[in-house]
């Protein structure tokens, strides 16, 4: 068993950290009342895994996902969550059973996403760059190419 563990640890040490080189095809948007201007990739991941719950200004975080069949959802899942949509569904089954936490609510179109984010102070979501309008605020995500 010790050999197995050592072999596994060695494998991990040899593994280099190389984030996805595929360009992001979405921008992250928040409600205009949100004072946060930038997030790290890790922070964004934690928000969409519901591991972070409150904004620094004491507003509850309300992540909003896209429908699981949307292309932008699949890209977001891969680039931000480092998991496929299917693997994230399995993660949410696990979270529901062990922590009682449900997945983020979903929307089916950019228009719906924007209206939701514009109407809910703690909301955060993502849309294709071409769909952004002035009802929401774009947040810079460091570490996301």
């Amino acid at each position, binding site marked *: 068993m010790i050999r197995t563990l050592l072999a596994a640890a060695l494998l*991990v040490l040899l593994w280099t950290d190389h984030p996805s080189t595929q360009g992001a095809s979405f921008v992250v948007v928040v409600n205009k009342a949100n004072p946060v201007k930038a997030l790290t990739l*890790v922070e964004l991941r934690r928000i969409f895994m519901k591991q972070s719950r409150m904004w620094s200004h004491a507003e509850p975080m309300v992540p909003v996902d896209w429908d699981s069949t949307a292309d932008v959802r699949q890209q977001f899942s891969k680039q931000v969550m480092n998991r496929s949509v299917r693997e994230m569904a399995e993660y949410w*089954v696990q979270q529901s059973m062990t922590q009682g936490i449900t997945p983020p609510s979903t929307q089916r179109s950019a228009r*719906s996403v924007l209206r939701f984010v514009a109407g809910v102070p703690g909301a955060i979501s993502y849309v294709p760059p071409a769909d952004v309008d002035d009802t929401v605020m774009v947040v810079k995500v460091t570490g996301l190419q």
Partner: protein
Amino acid sequence: MTRTLVLAVVLFIAGARPALAQQSEIAALRAELARQQAVIAQLLQRLDALEKEKPSSAVAAPASAAVQELQDDLNAQEDSVNSLREIVNNKVNVNGYYNFRFSADGSEEPAAFQQHHLGVIMAKQLGRFNFLMELELQNVPHHPEITPENGEEHADEGPEEKPESDISGEGQVAVENAWMEYNHNRHFGVRVGKQLSPQYWWQNHYPNLTLSTLLPIYLRELFPAEVVGVMMQGSVAKPVGSSEFGVGYKFYVANNNFEGNSRADLRDGKAWGARGQLRFPTGGALRRFDVAADIYRGHVGLTTKELVEDNVVGFESQLEISRFRLQTEWARGESLGMSRTGYYVQPAVRLHEDWISFYRAEQLDSPRIRRAERRHIAGLNYRPYPQIALKGEFYRSQPLEREFTHADEEQKPFNGFAAAAVFFF
């Protein structure tokens, strides 16, 4: 026993009624949501059609007004949908699971179908507060001679009174989890109530989260399955590239486990335990690398009813690289001057999105229950949906010769098969 069961079932039904009523309310809201979404889809189609038309200058103004009117309708409908969705999401979250299993092996135990578990989980989040309750209906085995010592997939009561009859359908209702939690921030949170032990397998022992139908053989012999008490937890992390290096802790004070029942603890001196966890940075194909160490110190009541000190330490790791997973746990316990150890190593690979295969090598050496055994399990999971697991596995069990095993009985290796169908709802 029968009275207790009848009372428990009545209580369960009474308790479930509000949940059923709420479910029907949620179903009505979902239906309303679906209707609103259909209206939105129609409005979007009309809007697209109008926008594609090239109106002549004579009709441009009325057409523009029509588009604006439709746009307003659309916005109103979307607001309505979002409002309904928030109502649905703010209801108590009701989930559950269903587990039916079959097992047969070459031991003296008969083959058996078991309607094993039906669990209902209710949870609610309010800001920094969380509440979770899990009611579990567990059928006792159909055959009274089957005892739960061979690794049942269940995390509670330990040695129970034997079933009084072999009538299938009798069962027990247990509150497996009932806790509330306050998370001040990621560095500190506190959870009070009846909760699962913090070790990885106990936390994830639910039938649709495990790859195997059978629990690791050592599991019940080392750390207690549950603790009733107060647990503090938190973590700190440092960003590393697109990931982070994290250190987590848990510390708990809880009732001692007397014959598996912590309610019977009348001692002032309580049990305590702690857990430290390291989460290494991930990236690329490396998706998870966690290691953890656990310690537990308490008193345990054995069959003799004597109170004995019980100290347990354990180590574990979870590694996930691309489609490969490796889970290991090892633990050693000391009580009555005897030490007992157990471990498992479980590699697994996702063959396809819906298919996962696994192998597990495991061993238990326990003078306390005079059992020494090594087991190899190889199995396959088919998961057509994330919520459904169809599991099958073959295993070979090898009794080991030790000073403490029954020297007068011939222990022979045997093979077995177990399968389960699990539905999360």
